[in-house]
C-alpha cells in the first residue's frame, strides 16, 4: 500500500460511497429491497410470501417462464440422512448430471455439486491419490472403486460457523442451506469445508432456457447469481415434499439411500444398524449425516 494513503484518499472514498449511494437510489426499488432484505430466518410469514412473489416475477421477466418458488419449512420429527453403498457404486456419473439438471447448476462455467472419485481397491480411501477425470469405455474398471462426494450435511458444520453474515445455516431437519440473497461471496465457508463440497459462481451462471427446472425452493435450486456460493441441499425442493433426491432416483445400481434418521422403520436406519458404515474424515468431528456403507 502506498504511503500517502491519507485524508485525501479518505475523502475520495467518502465521495465514492456517496456516489454509489446516489447510484443505488437511482436504480429500481427492487434492488434496494433486495439490499435491505432481512436475514431469511428473521422474516415473518407475510414477508416471506412477498419475497417469493417478487422472485417469481423476477424469474418470469428474466427467463420468460413461470417458476414455482417454495419456501416450505422443515417438518417436525424429521432429520434427513443419506447413505451410499460403496460396494455397489460403479462410477457411471448418472447422479452428477441428474443433479445438475434438477438443481439448475451452471453449465458454463461448469458447476458440479457431486464429484465422483475413482480410487484403487488396493489403497483404500485415499483422497490424495484419487482421480475424478477417469473416462474409460465402460465402468467399473478392474481393481477400482468409486466414491461420490457431495455436501456431507454435517451435524457440526464448520462452514456455517465461519460465515460472517449468517447466510448459511443448518435447518431443523438437518439440511445445511445457503440464502443466496444474503451471501456476500467471501468464500470463508468454502475454505472451511473439508469436503470441497461448496462451489462459487465466479461468473454469471448459465443454464439453457429449455433445461431450466422451474420447480424450485428458496433455499435450494432457485437460479443463482454471480458471486454466491452453492451446494447440495439433498434436493430440498423434492425431499420436503416427500420425494427422493434426484441422485437417488437416477442411480442405476441402487447405491444411493435416503430417509428419516428419526424413523426406526426407514432404510437409512436399517443400514446404520445392520451394515458396516463409515463417514469421511471422521477425525474432524464434523459429524456428517451422509454415510458410506458396504451392502455387499
Amino acid at each position, binding site marked *: 500500500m502506498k504511503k500517502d494513503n491519507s485524508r485525501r484518499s*479518505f475523502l475520495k472514498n467518502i465521495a465514492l460511497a456517496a456516489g454509489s449511494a446516489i447510484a443505488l437510489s437511482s436504480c429500481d426499488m427492487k434492488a434496494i429491497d433486495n439490499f435491505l432484505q432481512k436475514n431469511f430466518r428473521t422474516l415473518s410469514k407475510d414477508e416471506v410470501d412477498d419475497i417469493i412473489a417478487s422472485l417469481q416475477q423476477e424469474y418470469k421477466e428474466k427467463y420468460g417462464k413461470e417458476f414455482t418458488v417454495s419456501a416450505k419449512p422443515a417438518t417436525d420429527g424429521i432429520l434427513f440422512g443419506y447413505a451410499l453403498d460403496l460396494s455397489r457404486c460403479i462410477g457411471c456419473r448418472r447422479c452428477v448430471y441428474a443433479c445438475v439438471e434438477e438443481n439448475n447448476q451452471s453449465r458454463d462455467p461448469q458447476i458440479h455439486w457431486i464429484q465422483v472419485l475413482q480410487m484403487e481397491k488396493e489403497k483404500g480411501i485415499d483422497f490424495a491419490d484419487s482421480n475424478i477425470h477417469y473416462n474409460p469405455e465402460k465402468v467399473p474398471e478392474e481393481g477400482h472403486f468409486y466414491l461420490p462426494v457431495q455436501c456431507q450435511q454435517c451435524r457440526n458444520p464448520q462452514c456455517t460457523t465461519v460465515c460472517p453474515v449468517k447466510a448459511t445455516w443448518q435447518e431443523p431437519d438437518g439440511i445445511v442451506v445457503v440464502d443466496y440473497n444474503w451471501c456476500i461471496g467471501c468464500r470463508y465457508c468454502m475454505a472451511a469445508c473439508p469436503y470441497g463440497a461448496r462451489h462459487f459462481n465466479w461468473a454469471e451462471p448459465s443454464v439453457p432456457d429449455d433445461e431450466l427446472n422451474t420447480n424450485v425452493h428458496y433455499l435450494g435450486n432457485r437460479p443463482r447469481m454471480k458471486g454466491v456460493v452453492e451446494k447440495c441441499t439433498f434436493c430440498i425442493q423434492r425431499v420436503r415434499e416427500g420425494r427422493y433426491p434426484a441422485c437417488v432416483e437416477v442411480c442405476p445400481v441402487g447405491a444411493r439411500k435416503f430417509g428419516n434418521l428419526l424413523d426406526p422403520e426407514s432404510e437409512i436406519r436399517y443400514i446404520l444398524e445392520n451394515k458396516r458404515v463409515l463417514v469421511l474424515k471422521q477425525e474432524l468431528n464434523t459429524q456428517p449425516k451422509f454415510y458410506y456403507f458396504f*451392502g455387499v
Partner: protein
Amino acid sequence: MNLIYNHIPDRCCSPQRKQKSPHPLLLRSIFLIIVLVIAACHTREKRYNQHVLPAEAPTSPEQTEEFAVEAPPFTEGIFPCSDCHNELEPNPTRRELDWHEEVTSIFDHDKENRWCLDCHDLNNRDSLRLASGKLLSFEESYKLCGQCHGEKLRDWRVGVHGKRTGQWNGQKHYLLCVHCHNPHAPKFEPLTPEPPPLPQKISK
C-alpha cells in the same frame, strides 16, 4: 474513527492535537443497541428453528407381503408365453433348444446345475415355479430369486439392495431383481460413464 487515524501519517497527528473522542455514554449506548439487535436476531432465529410443520401422519403402506413393483421388463411380444406354448407339446428334457436363442446364447447362471424348468413351469408357461412346486406370477419373481439369494432378498425388501422410487415417507415402488439382473445372465452389465468434469480453469 480509530481506523481512519491509523491511516493518517504522523505529521497530522502531532501530540498537541487533542483527539476528540466521542462521549463515553454515547459509545456505551451504541454498544448496547448493537447487543440488543444481535440478541433480537438470535431469538428470532431460534424461533425460526422451532417454526416447523407439525409431523404428518405417516403414510406408510399397510404391511403386506406383496410389494408394489414396476412392470416386469419383458421383450415386447414375448408375453403371454402361452400364445405359442399352448400349441406346443411341453418337453421336460434338458436339451439344446432351436428356439429362444436370445436366452440360450447368453445363458450363464449356475449353468452346470440349472436349466429352464428350475424357474419356469412346465405346464403353465405364463408362471414361474418355486422349488416347492408353488406357481408365481412374474410380478413376484423376487421370491424365486430369494430361494437361493435369501440375504439379497432380505436387503431388497427393506430397500437396501436394489432400488425403490416414490415417496421416502410413503408409497414406494420397487424395481424387480430382473430389472437390473438378466435372470439368464445375472451379472450386472458395465455402463458407459457420463463425461468427466471439465478441467478446472485457472481463475485469476
